[in-house]
């Protein structure tokens, strides 16, 4: 498991208000089915921005972005997280 994925799970644990531990989630588990609400996803987004020093543009603020841990990691990759500088 990557450091990014670990950090995403820790943020979900702290801000996702999930009824289950985010640390036990599989990468492709549906977070909304696990209990993630729209409002909690806002908190997750803001915490991700703090942690990774990025800003989520409006285009990424869609339900699919926060559908799963892997989806969040993919979104972070598009924002340059985990990409080695050239």
């Amino acid at each position, binding site marked *: 498991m990557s450091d990014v994925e670990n950090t995403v799970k820790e943020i979900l644990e702290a801000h996702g*208000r999930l009824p289950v531990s985010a640390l036990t989630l599989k990468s492709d588990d549906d977070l909304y089915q696990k209990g993630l609400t*729209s*409002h*909690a996803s*806002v*908190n997750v987004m*803001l915490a991700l*921005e703090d942690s990774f020093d990025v800003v989520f543009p*409006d285009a990424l*603020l*869609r*339900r699919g972005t926060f559908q799963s841990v892997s989806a969040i990691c993919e979104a972070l990759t598009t924002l340059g997280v985990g990409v080695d500088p050239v």
Partner: protein
Amino acid sequence: MQVTQGCEHECSWHDSVPTDATPTSERGTGVLVGIDVQSIDEVAASMREFGSRYVHRIYTDVEVEQCGDDPMTSARGLAARFAAKEAVMKILDVRDDVPAWKDIAVRRTASGRPEVILQGVAAQLARRQGLGHVSLSLSHTDSVAAAAVVAQVSGRSERLAS
């Protein structure tokens, strides 16, 4: 309708009926109903945790201003507005184009009634669906805010480009 302690307003509408839409029977006519609830404590916690970043990312300047400066009153008002944004989202046919949070806003009129203001992608979606008047009702208890919207579908919607 009054849930318990506070019914902030009754209802109002925002006239967003397009006048230049191409008729289509895609959605027909009738009404769409959206409803959502939001924990006030969760909004208050987000305000404490993320401050103005949270507030100004989600709510328009008018929404923030009209909810006041008192933390508890503000959290209650913003929670109702968050529920309203979600309730409106439920009646919009959202696919690839997703409205930004501020595309759906609540504004209190001079008479005290709340009305829905749609901008950007939300307004485009409403036009495409042929949505007419969107009536809004907000309510709250000490812990939960709720919003319900009812929209008329005019039967006149813009044809989606294929």
